[in-house]
């Protein structure tokens, strides 16, 4: 490792690029985030513990976590299918489909929430269909999941797509010639290659969904213990001018998203090592 380090430094601008990276990271991300820690540190441990484990807050963690998990799982599956279709197949409207993927980013989350709610309420087009089957979407955890799927889809597609594009079809063809079934080819050859990117996309989508606020408040119904998400609890603490509790709960969420990302990066790094091990 150490030996390699020296040879790697042949390329110029290490100091400059690290310097720029770290200083911008500090000013824009780290210092503001540190203020959250400093503010929470003014509380005693007991107060912090009480603020973050109240039964209503605990219930909101559960709602946020489960809906985010469900939504990111759906996104992981749909994201791979979409990326696959966009990279491997030719069909009409493909370019339009490709272009649509980023739209959830551009639509303000609140507008997305209002639009999705009016579609999935009992009176809406989609909601009306499902309400005949006895399923209501808006104002239930299913509604939250729908909003989160909307928010998270670009992450997986855009993570997987470039990797699939780079993937050389030679191996698949070879395997196909040798008589391997398509399912086998997918699981044995393609899936391991795209897995790190799927995980990255999943992790990013999951983290983003955990914290999503704007679209969810409209579709959730916001009933305590049932459909109340953690960001909403933070908002209501702020409304009560209870900064201390708000920052404590915010810190819990921050740690959660940090852990998710760190895990994703670990898996990704391990995979990269395996993939580039031969080089």
């Amino acid at each position, binding site marked *: 490792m150490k030996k390699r380090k*020296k040879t790697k*430094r042949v390329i110029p601008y*290490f*100091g*400059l690029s*690290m*310097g*720029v990276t*770290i*200083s*911008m990271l*500090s*000013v824009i991300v780290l210092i503001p985030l540190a203020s959250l820690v400093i503010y929470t540190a003014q509380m005693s441990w007991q107060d912090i513990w009480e603020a973050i484990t*109240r*039964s*209503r807050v605990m219930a909101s963690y559960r709602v946020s976590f489960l809906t985010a998990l469900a939504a990111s799982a759906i996104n992981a599956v749909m994201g791979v299918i979409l990326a696959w279709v966009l990279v491997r197949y030719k069909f009409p409207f493909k370019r339009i489909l490709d272009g649509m993927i980023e739209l959830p980013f551009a639509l303000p989350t609140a507008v997305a929430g*209002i639009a999705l*709610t*009016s579609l999935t*309420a*009992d*009176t*809406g087009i989609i909601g009306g269909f499902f309400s005949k089957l006895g399923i209501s979407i*808006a*104002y239930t955890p299913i509604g939250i999941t729908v909003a989160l799927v909307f928010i998270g889809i670009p992450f997986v597609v855009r993570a997987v797509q470039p990797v699939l594009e780079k993937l050389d079809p030679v191996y698949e063809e070879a395997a196909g010639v040798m008589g391997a079934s398509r399912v086998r080819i997918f699981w044995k050859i393609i899936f391991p290659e795209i897995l790190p990117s799927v995980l990255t996309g999943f992790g990013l989508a999951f983290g983003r969904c955990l914290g999503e606020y704007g679209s969810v*408040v*409209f579709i959730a*119904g*916001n*009933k*305590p*213990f049932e459909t109340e998400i953690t960001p*909403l609890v933070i*908002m*209501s*603490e*702020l*409304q*009560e*001018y*209870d900064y201390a*509790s708000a920052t404590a709960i915010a810190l819990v969420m921050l740690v959660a998203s940090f852990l998710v990302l760190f895990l994703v990066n670990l898996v990704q790094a391990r995979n990269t090592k395996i993939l580039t091990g031969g080089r």
Partner: protein
Amino acid sequence: MKNKSVKKILASVLALSVIGVSALAFAGCQKADTSNDSKVKITNVSYDPTRELYESYNKAFAKHWKEKTGQEVEVTQSHGGSGKQALEVANGLEADVVTLALEYDVNAVRDAGLIEDGWVSEFDNDSSPYTSTIVFLVRKGNPKNIKDWDDLVKSGVGVITPNPKTSGGARWNYLAAWAYADKKYNGDESKIEDFVKKLYKNVLVLDSGARGATTSFVENGQGDVLLAWENEAYLSLKDYPNDYEIITPSISILAQPSVAVVDSVVDDRGTRKVATEYLQYLYSDEAQKIAAENYYRPYNKDILKQYSNVFDLDINLVTIKDFGGWDNAQKTHFADGGVFDKIYEGK
């Protein structure tokens, strides 16, 4: 080699920080105020459904101020959830005046040290130039036959109201229901609590704000009755005259939006005179009529009577004083672990 790169890192960190800070400083300075003798700018931080009210009022006031002093006045408006707006002023949003949904929110600005004690008595009628109340909005023909608060706790009635924890305005809704039960059960706490609990059991959607609740009720067809401020109910009625009716319950609460001059800001900017006059003029006949036209009940009794075809004047209104003031009501009902939390925890 290693030392050199560390030095380089440090050097570029320093250089960039300087660039960053000066860029921000430059951007910050650009926004400096330009008040002079011929023109003055003030900022009014208000809550959501007052936009039209203040749009008309600002024009009237500009005319009045020009006639009085010969100076132009430009008012910048900010609208948002009342509690959030108060929080932003407390955090440094430069407001010359605040015109919020309830006294408690203005107190939050006072507690931050920006408004002096005793602001409530600075203007007439506890510094509320216009008031409102809580009414029911039901669907046309009133299919569930909802007449009073009692009908809201019946099974099968779907109620829409915002969450009092996140919406300042919704606290009035909750307190109005409480006031009714208080009268009905003669102050028996456990029965009142039961009544309110039953009511919130019937709540289908607990939106985070008044407008979200209206959307759930009007656009998405949820529930049978919307608890709303009178002025907001009239706004919905104006948009959809054939779809809804307003029902006035036998007892409701006098919702008093509060106005105050933000002392530390006006002293800093030298705008005390115009800011004070801005709020004082809200009590003039002209402004009171503007308030009534925007469905707020004017403080001036004579003008209120002129609009008796709009407002139900027989309604029995309790006030926040019956709850021992806002600080008290907040602590008992809405704070963490208060009565409202118990309603949902008991499940």
